[in-house]
């Protein structure tokens, strides 16, 4: 078995190995309640990573995800008394719009995605600061429970976040593998010039991918603000790195074209296990960022398809 044939299976092997190692080290880890709590905790991050998958799948990146989620927590908190249940819609539309603008700037104005999304992130950050008046805001508890309480409750011992995550990943998987749009995404990610030559409207596909990324970042922000019962323009800081790590360790390379949403599910679980293992083995929380940064480099180096890069800039 060569490394090339082993590669697609590495993510879940890594996950299994990590779970075993941590499980042996700490017997409490494998208890169902613990695993469920861990999975429920990671859902907002997972949703953001799910969106990021679409941006990376087409060979781009979305560095605005964290700022969009930040902005959404503020929008959700501010809009809840005004719009009630339609707040969710407003949040998603805001994310969709900002993602769409990122896509437009990238494809029509020819600005590389890491710069365009960085810039759009700056705009989202400003909007969040403006709407919040630079303060942390709190939701009215009764309203939150009335309209969005279902998001954070639990049935049969399973937190509802997991259902939300499951619905989204199934929807994303359906889009990716069972629709023309999904096929086009793969074509664009696998080789853009070929996709252009075969008559795909590449610009439209890419704009839609960035819009989906923005919308899912917004949903992540919404869920996060409901969970914490409030919003602030910096509340989701620290999400960007693990979200990118989740996509890449899952096996979707920076060059796009292979991998996908199921890979990101596995990648997010790897991130979750690494995180909780650091708690169990009493690794200082301050080292987490360093560890994730190194994991990111390793993951990129192992997954990236160098034959696609004529020169590595």
């Amino acid at each position, binding site marked *: 078995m060569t490394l090339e044939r082993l590669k697609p299976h590495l993510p879940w092997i890594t996950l299994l190995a990590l779970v075993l190692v941590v499980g042996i080290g700490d017997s409490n880890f494998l208890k169902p309640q613990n695993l469920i709590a861990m999975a429920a905790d990671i859902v907002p991050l997972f949703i953001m990573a799910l969106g990021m998958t679409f941006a990376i799948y087409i*060979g*781009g*990146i979305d560095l605005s995800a964290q700022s969009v989620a930040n902005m959404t927590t503020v929008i959700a908190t501010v809009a809840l008394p005004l719009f009630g249940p339609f707040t969710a819609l407003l949040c998603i539309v805001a994310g969709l719009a900002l993602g769409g603008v990122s896509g437009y*700037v*990238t*494809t029509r*104005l*020819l*600005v*590389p*995605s*890491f*710069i*365009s999304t*960085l*810039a*759009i*992130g*700056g*705009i989202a*950050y*400003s*909007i969040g*600061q*403006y709407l919040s008046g*630079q303060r942390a805001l709190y939701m009215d508890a009764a309203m939150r429970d009335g309209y969005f309480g279902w998001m954070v409750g639990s049935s049969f011992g399973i937190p509802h976040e997991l259902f939300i995550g499951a619905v989204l990943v199934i929807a994303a998987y359906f889009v990716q593998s069972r629709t023309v749009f999904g096929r086009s995404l793969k074509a664009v990610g696998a080789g*853009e*010039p070929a996709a*252009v030559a075969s008559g795909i409207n*590449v610009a439209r596909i890419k704009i839609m991918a960035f819009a989906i990324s923005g919308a899912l970042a917004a949903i992540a922000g919404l869920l996060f603000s409901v969970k914490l019962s409030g919003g602030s323009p910096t509340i989701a800081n620290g999400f960007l*790195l693990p979200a990118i790590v989740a996509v890449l360790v899952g096996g979707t390379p*920076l060059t796009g074209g292979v991998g996908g949403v199921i890979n990101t599910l596995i990648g997010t679980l790897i991130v979750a296990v690494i995180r909780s293992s650091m708690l169990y083995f009493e690794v*200082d929380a*301050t*080292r*987490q*960022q*360093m*560890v*994730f*940064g*190194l994991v*990111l*480099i390793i993951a*990129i*180096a192992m997954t*990236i398809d*160098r034959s696609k*890069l004529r*020169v*590595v*800039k």
Partner: protein
Amino acid sequence: MNDLLTRDMLVKWAPLIVLIVLVLMFALIEPRFFSVRNFARIGISSAPALMVAIGVTFIIIMGSIDLSMEGTVSVCAVAFAFCFLALGGTLWSAAWLALPLALVVGAVIGLINGLVHVKLKIPSFMASLAMGFVGTGFALLLTGGDRVRIEDEAFRSLLTVRWFNFPIMCYVALAFLLIAWFIQTRTTLGRNFYAVGGGEELAHASGLNVNRVRVLGFMLAGVFYAVGALLAVGRIGIAETATGSNFMFVSITSVVVGGTALWGGIGGVFNTLIGVLIVNVIGNGMVVVGLPGYVQDGVLGLLVIIAVVLSTDRKSVDFVK
């Protein structure tokens, strides 16, 4: 007349025109803006940013990008502060050794950055972004989240002592600007940056060791980030994990707005000076005329997009990721 209005001329002079228009506009709205006192304030906020932006200018000229500055600046600042305090805590003792040491730390981080990018063949934006996260994490590890205070009067004279109304740190920044200009125009390395940025395959074919130039570029950038870190510490007297925060957005914006093309090969350190001044005049001017400071990020975001669009020659770009 047509010669004056070509795209090239516009791109070349637009940044300077924008800067002058901005200064005039703010001066008209609020006369207090146009005072030596306020210009000194702009100078103080520009000095560290200019150093960091110059560092990344070299990288962008090569057509690569470096997003590690936040982590690098934090690590350099914290490493400098610890050594400075350990070696005596005042510039008039062995503690001055902490200054060159900070530059060495910057160079080493740049070296690692460059090696990860070149040897592992990872696109520079991702390699450096990841290294930046590692750097911020490392700075946090060193400080444990604490702030390290530098109260030495000799070191703080960077801010407190003024010549002709401007603090010493502005002159230090100018000196390093001239060094950067010298490297850019009068050394082989400087010219090699343009060769790599102008066309990597051509540079390679003409016998240039492109990978070596790249790694050296990242090291040089690291040294300038370290200078930026020293000025940032001199400005507020505190070294902490957050010393580097916001440098990424501001420095990339400055470079691009100054007219250095993201595609490489065009622009230079004086463009970056104009860009840094534009960014800081906007930041300062908004506060002076009474707009809230946070609008700045949004305005800068728009400016970046406009600047990149203007500086892109659409005919020469195949497709964009």
